[in-house]
């Protein structure tokens, strides 16, 4: 069926590769194609990054609507400003993130050995994986931002039930929502991938050192702030940042995790 195509490919191969390679060689793919193919490899099973997360969102939505209606029935109405404000405490909007951090881990723990078996370099694997993370984060950010806006326009899906206008989402306009969804999604993927990469590179010892260092850093920071009586200053600083500012700061850990993961993976070896 693909005979003419093959013939063309062979002719091309001979033209390009004739001076260097002899029999049974394959023509080299460009760097961009190789990186893109890794992104496609992650997405060949669409359930992992698209199907299951959106199934979780769907289930969370149905549950949110039910709970809102129950509360509405017992308190005598959902339409009031208080009731809308009360629904902001729900974490349902972030429900797929708990699954997606595991997906970030598996992108490395399963994806890396598979990609190496397929003759992919560590560099191409990491760049393709990062590209896929950025793409999915962008798509999810747009989708959640649109849903947040729709929810406002429809007054909670005509049921006064709010899932997407919760926590810090839907307060400062859609550009801030777009930014905050995007950075949260990136952070979730890259932190998951970073942890898996530490394990891939240094195994159990790496895990012990990583988690101990993280715990020490957190406890140390809290101690430093407490001993210098700086909590009021920290509070002032945080409120000065605003929602957009806080989320912009999250690019720092996301970038550190992404860069650190790249450096760690360059010398990592798959487990037997």
């Amino acid at each position, binding site marked *: 069926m693909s005979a003419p195509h093959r013939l063309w490919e062979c002719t091309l191969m001979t033209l390009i590769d004739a001076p260097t390679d*002899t029999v049974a060689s394959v023509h080299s793919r460009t760097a961009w194609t190789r990186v893109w193919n890794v992104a*496609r*490899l992650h997405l060949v099973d669409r359930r992992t990054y698209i199907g299951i997360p959106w199934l979780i969102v769907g289930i969370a939505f149905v549950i949110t609507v039910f709970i809102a209606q129950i509360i509405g029935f017992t308190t005598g109405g959902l339409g009031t400003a208080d009731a809308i404000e009360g629904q902001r405490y729900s974490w349902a909007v972030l429900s797929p993130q708990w699954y997606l951090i595991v997906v970030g881990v598996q992108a490395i723990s399963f994806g890396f050995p*598979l990609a190496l078996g397929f*003759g992919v*370099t560590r560099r191409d694997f990491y760049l393709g994986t990062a590209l896929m993370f950025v793409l999915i984060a962008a798509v999810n950010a747009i989708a959640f931002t649109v849903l947040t806006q729709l929810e406002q326009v429809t007054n909670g899906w005509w049921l006064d039930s709010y899932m997407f206008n919760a926590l810090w989402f839907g307060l400062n306009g859609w550009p801030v929502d777009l930014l905050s969804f995007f950075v949260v999604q990136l952070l979730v993927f890259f932190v998951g991938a970073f942890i898996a990469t530490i394990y891939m590179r240094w195994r159990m010892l790496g895990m012990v050192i990583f988690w101990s260092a993280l715990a020490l850093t957190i406890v140390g920071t809290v101690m430093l702030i407490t001993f210098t009586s700086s909590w009021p200053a920290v509070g002032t600083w945080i409120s000065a940042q605003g929602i957009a500012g806080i989320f912009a700061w999250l690019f720092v850990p996301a970038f550190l995790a992404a860069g650190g993961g790249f450096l760690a993976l360059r010398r990592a070896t798959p487990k037997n």
Partner: protein
Amino acid sequence: MNLTDTNTAVRVDGLTKKFGSFTAIDDVSFTIERNKIYGLLGRNGAGKTTLMQLLTGQQFATRGTLEVFGASPVENARVLQQICFIKESQKYPDSFRIEHVLASAPWFFANWDADFAQRLAVDFRLPLTRAIKKLSRGQLSAVGVIVGLASRAPLTYFDEPYLGLDAVARQIFYDRLLEDYVEHPRTVVLSTHLIDEVSNLLEHVLVIDDGRILMDQDAEALRGSASNVVGKKTDVDFFVAGRDIISRDGLGGLASVTVAGLSEAERAGARAAGLELSPVSLQQLIVARTTSTSAG
């Protein structure tokens, strides 16, 4: 790239790999020529998988040089695109089905033949929509075999590809490998324990033991390189005296001795002395060679 290199797929010189204080590969040197089928034979833990991981850039060498198609394979996209490595312990994403593997493999292997992969899936009776994690050991091996064959990579490594495969499936693997190799010549390296099963397939044999290359020989030459001499103990002892004895076995007054390199005249002499001569299989020869070294 000079002319001598065009015939060489792999060149290894003084290659060493240590894991802490354990030396998995110990100062190994050999070359792999293009378009031949190599057998990488050796006992469990001899270093076969580690060697293949070094040759495919999955592990980093401690010392020595390693060239695949004229360059180091480590992080070298030009080289790695020509390689397919089917590892016995290959991991797949948790949710993957067989169809996902077959759908994505063509993106990485330029010579991939999808029709061939489909035919092999039928041969091995693989249910394409079944999740990888629900496959039996044999079915999992069959997935690897299909990828390894249909990829038609210029350099293909099979690391114990037959685990869990029944005798019929193994025969299908050997038959398809040979058929496809004849039509599309390429370099194949096969690591295996089942030496006799693949004996006729192999053109060259590398035997690795304790991280060292014990034998690096043409398979045809190796097959004719030893004989079994059986007869009365006294006659046998007289005949083999001063020869290169590979192994010795005996029961009562009878003895069976494996010796290396008998000429046609010597064979005639042995038969005249009332001794029986029988050929030694590749497997027997390698078992004898690898046990004698570990004993001594």
